[in-house]
């Protein structure tokens, strides 16, 4: 597999995404909401109010749970991109001429994955910076120190987030091969968020604590899912099936 070829596919998809409102809005809206909303919520409900959430002993767990939303966001953003990337080709019937070129299935698939992963990572890392600065600004007086950055968020951003994004992209590719429009692909793609929401709720209800070791375990589990999804997606992305079954 030649990475340079996959990059050509990804670069073309980047150009296309610029002109597809649904794609770039999905890249921008969710990260902006997460990065701005949580510091604001914390400011008004926890710190300024008297809900007891701002107690120095409680706040770190709350912040870790909030941070996990960055992962949920990271898994959500590529759903729109990957769905469009594959279903869009299906709708435009542009895969047949592409498949007749010297590109391999793997190169096309990798290009599609890169085109979904990179904008998501860039958007979510930018969102994470805004999120951390905002949270630090709101909680500094209560905690007496800047909570971010720390090992927790580093693990979350550098280990868990990429594997979650890959999981979402691969899941989207599989879903996209079974549906005929972007909206359906997005609707089914949402299912991949459920396990992540489950983890978030478990942390909010103190069933688990999202510390470094837990995050690494979750990352390992998702990595295993990634491997399984990769094999599934390569089975789904077979040129013969694409040309004869994709309608």
């Amino acid at each position: 597999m030649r990475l340079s070829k996959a990059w050509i596919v990804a670069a073309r998809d980047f150009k296309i995404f610029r002109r597809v409102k649904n794609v770039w809005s999905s890249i921008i809206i969710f990260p902006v909401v997460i990065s701005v909303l949580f510091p604001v919520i914390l400011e008004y409900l926890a710190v300024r109010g008297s809900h007891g959430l701002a107690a120095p002993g409680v706040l770190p767990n709350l912040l870790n749970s909030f941070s996990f939303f960055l992962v949920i966001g990271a898994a959500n953003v590529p759903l729109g991109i990957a769905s469009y990337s594959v279903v869009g080709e299906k709708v435009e019937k542009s895969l047949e001429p592409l498949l007749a070129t010297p590109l391999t299935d793997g190169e096309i698939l990798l290009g599609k994955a890169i085109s979904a992963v990179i904008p998501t990572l860039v958007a979510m890392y930018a969102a994470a910076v805004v999120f951390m600065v905002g949270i630090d600004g709101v909680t500094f007086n209560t905690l007496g120190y800047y909570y971010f950055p720390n090992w927790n968020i580093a693990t979350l951003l550098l280990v868990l987030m990429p594997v979650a994004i890959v999981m979402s992209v691969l899941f989207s590719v599989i879903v996209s091969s079974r549906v005929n429009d972007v909206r359906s692909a997005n609707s089914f793609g949402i299912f991949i968020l459920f396990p992540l929401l489950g983890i978030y709720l478990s942390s909010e209800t103190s069933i688990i604590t999202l510390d470094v070791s837990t995050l690494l375990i979750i990352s390992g589990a998702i990595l295993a899912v990634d491997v399984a999804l990769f094999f599934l997606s390569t089975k789904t992305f077979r040129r013969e099936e694409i040309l004869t079954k994709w309608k």
Partner: protein
Amino acid sequence: MIETENLTKKFWDLTAVDNLTLHVDDGEVFGFLGPNGAGKTTTIRILCCLISKTSGTATIGGYEIGNKADWLKIRKTIGLVPDNVGLSENLTAYDNLDFYGKIYDLSDTQRKENNKRFLEMLGLWDKRNVLAGTFSKGMKQKLAIARALIHDPQVLFMDEPTANLDPEASKTVRDFILQLKKEKKTIFLNTHNLDEAQRICDRVAIMNTSLRAIGTPQDLESSVSGRKTVIGLEQQVNEPVLGALKKLPLKNLSINGDTITFDVEDPDKENSPVVETIVLAGGHVRSINVVGSTLEDTYLKLLRK
């Protein structure tokens, strides 16, 4: 350039292509005719290494279809214009071509030259920065042809290139195919436009899952239905003329008022003695016409078999 032998493709228990054996010469425009579902697109897809064959052999430029060592070489040898143009509608005409140029490893200079050359040849240079999605069907078809040619392939597969185009756009595409013929490109043309096949193809094959006939359009016309000579007289056919004609070995002779019709294989040789006989019997010939069965007659006859 293209050879197939007993090429067969089955989708489960459905046979789409059955024992297809044909060859297409270098620089030939080869028409592949048949109704919908005849296996034309499936054949093109096999030849473009898009789908696998079930059995038989096929080669392009000596490279074997189905041989993993050859597939990359085959794909560099061929260009494909699919039945659905399959353009990236959110890219400009130029970017659509440029993307394919990059895939085929063309240098920046080559890409710029080829993009300009083909867009100009097909009258799209002024629209190079316009999104392909806004193009008319004819313009999209032209762009799809330019895309298939961007790496200068030796063989061009075209699947229904003029389907759904208006007459003017169809003519432009046909003229372009003839121009490519002059450049010695081998063109494999799927079509059910018989008139088009007759006008631009050196040879045609009629296909309906299996091969029904192959040859030049003229050969096919005469091989199946033959041609007829129609002679018009200035007066009704009288007894002396009829008696003289009956002595000649004419096939399917029929008389209708002042018109005499009979089958003919070589009109240049066979018509003169007939006219001479009519004149000697006192007939006055007003007109002589050779009526060929059309490719359409042949096509329909073969498909009904």
